[in-house]
Every structure is written in C-alpha cells, then in structure tokens.
C-alpha cells in the first residue's frame, strides 16, 4: 500500500490546512426561478492544500519518496485526512461498517455528553469478552489516536482496541473522554478501532474518533464516509521544495481525491 507519510511528530499535516469539497448538481432553471435539480454524487471531488515548514531531512525524504513512487499525479495513494475523523458513522454503531460480536446488545437514542441523543448503550450479557469495532484500510504502522466518550452506571472497565493494542480504562457515572494513542510495529494494511466489554458489562458510549496523529482533537461526527481516501493523488506533477538550512525544508502541495477516477 502506498500512503502519505506522517511527520516525525506523528502528524499528517501542519497548520494551516485547507480543504474544499466540490459536488456536482445539474440544474434546470426556469425563467421564474423554479429549479429541477439532479445530484451527481460520483463527480464529487475533495481537495486539500497542505503547507509544511521546518521539515527534517527524513521527513522530506519520505515525502519525496512518495512523490516519486506515485509519479506525481499519475497514480493514487492512501491519504488520511488530518482534519477529519477516520471512522465512518461515528454516531451510528448499528451501521454495517461497525463489526459487533453477535451477542453484543446495542441500544441507540441514549443521551450523549454534547446534549443530543446520539449515544449508544452497549451491553455484554455473555460470559466472554465481546467487541465492537470498525476496520479502516490504512497502514497499521502509522501513529493513531482513538478517542471516545464512555460512562457506566456502576464503576466499570472498558478496553479501547487500537489494532493489536488494547488499553483498559475505568469509567463511572460521569461521561469521560478516553484516549488511546500510539504507534504499532505492524505491517498490516488495515487497522481496527473499537471497544471490548468484559462479561456482564453495560455502558454508554459516544463519539468514536480515530485520527492519524498522536493526540485527540475535538470530536468530529461523520456519516457514511470517514477521513480515509484510498484514491488520493497529487494534484500536480511538480513538487517544489525550499531549503533554508540543514534539515530545514518547506513545501506546499495540493492533494485531490476524485471519486470517479
């Protein structure tokens, strides 16, 4: 898998970051301003403009290696949006993209910590540990951060699953944001994020978020697409690098993801 590299800090991008989404709607407009519209979702385009300052030699080498491997704008690579949640349907754990063990009981419509009713109650009525997770097609070797809100009527324990890593956290009646971050020595081309429940455990969960960085940012809800773009490309065939000293490089680049390519 060819993918956009992370900086040595574990971040995919630096501020400022800008992103633009372009949809295509065919509009037939009458003289009286009545409109008939037709959506063309296949023509959607997403573009990012990334600026990198003070890159080290290693960071620049990784970027140049990617640019040469994909031959500029010719071939695609996997890009993990630095400004988005990588998980799809972050507030609908009943969607098929979430893999819940068959005996796990999910109940939606529970009050969430942000004032809505988008949390889920998750119960494990069995005598075995059960899991709820989502897998994304991204290299497991990158640094990731999984975060979510959880609470339980009684003091309980929840396991955060980040690839092959599982971390235990104690939760109580108050909503708490739990964070599991780090980098795995794993060459797999996909990675799963989620939770594992001890036998008999019941808890409320909300706001699943995975990010390709080492710390959690504010929660970003997602719907049918997360921030994983397997068909991204460099917009141009030129990569211009400015060097102001030893291991002090900067560059700006545009990345584009086109659905219909």
């Amino acid at each position, binding site marked *: 898998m060819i993918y956009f590299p992370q900086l040595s800090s574990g971040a995919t991008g630096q501020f400022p970051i800008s992103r*633009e989404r372009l949809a295509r709607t065919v509009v037939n407009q009458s003289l009286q301003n009545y409109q008939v519209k037709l959506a063309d979702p296949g023509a959607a385009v997403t573009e990012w403009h990334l600026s990198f300052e003070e890159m080290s030699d290693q960071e620049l080498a990784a970027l140049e290696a990617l640019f040469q491997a994909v031959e500029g704008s010719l071939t695609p690579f996997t890009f993990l949006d630095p400004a988005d949640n990588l998980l799809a349907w972050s507030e609908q754990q009943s969607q098929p993209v979430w893999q819940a063990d068959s005996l796990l009981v999910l109940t939606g419509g529970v009050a969430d910590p942000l004032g809505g009713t988008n949390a889920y109650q998750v119960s494990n009525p069995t005598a075995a540990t059960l899991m709820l997770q989502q897998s994304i097609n991204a290299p497991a070797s990158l640094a990731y951060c999984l975060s979510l809100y959880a609470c339980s009527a009684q003091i309980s324990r929840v396991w955060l699953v980040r690839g092959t890593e599982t971390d235990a956290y104690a939760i109580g009646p108050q909503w708490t944001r739990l964070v599991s971050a780090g980098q795995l020595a794993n060459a797999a081309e996909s990675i799963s994020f989620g939770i594992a429940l001890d036998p008999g455990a019941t808890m409320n969960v909300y706001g699943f978020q995975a990010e390709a960085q080492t710390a959690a940012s504010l929660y*970003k809800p*997602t719907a049918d697409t997360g921030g994983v773009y397997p068909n991204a490309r460099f917009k141009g065939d030129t990569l211009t690098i400015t060097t102001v000293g030893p291991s002090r490089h900067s560059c700006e680049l545009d990345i584009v993801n086109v659905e219909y390519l």
Partner: protein
Amino acid sequence: MLQFNTDTIRFLDGTEQRFRDNPSVLHQWTIQLDLLDESELAALDQFVVTNQGRFGNFSFTDPWDGTVYPNCSLAADTFGFQLSGEMRGKATVTVCENRT
C-alpha cells in the same frame, strides 16, 4: 440579499413595460464564520455532504429576524474551510431560498 426578477420591454419611443417574472422576492444569506472549532467545522462539512452541495433542501431560520424559510438550499456545490490552528477555522456558506 433580496432578489426580485423583473422583465423589462423597452419600446422604440423609450417607454417601457415591466412585469415580474417571480411571484415573490427570494432571499439569500452569505454567512461568514470565523474562529470555528473542529467540531463545528465537521458539523458544517457533514451538512454540505448530506445535502450534496446545492442539491438538497432544508429549512433556514433567518438570523436577523427569526423567520423560518422552509425551502432553502446551499447556493454552491463548493464548500471549503481553512484551519489556521486549533479552534481557528474559517468558512463561508451561502444559503438561498428556492422558489416553491
């Protein structure tokens, strides 16, 4: 912005006949948003994605007088934001009223 749609026919002697093409005025709002945090930007982005740009319809409450306009759309198929730092997002959205 308020928009009427007036058709004008000008005659050789300089006189004019005017008539309205639209039965009523249409409204448009340009909303400039600064200092948004990532959650607010994500909510806005999801709203644009859900609407598929200017394809979808929604009701919009005029922030000036609280009037609810039940049939509105985004004015453009493009939505972009700039994130210059943590909790320092910037975006502009234009909402237009549709003829019903």
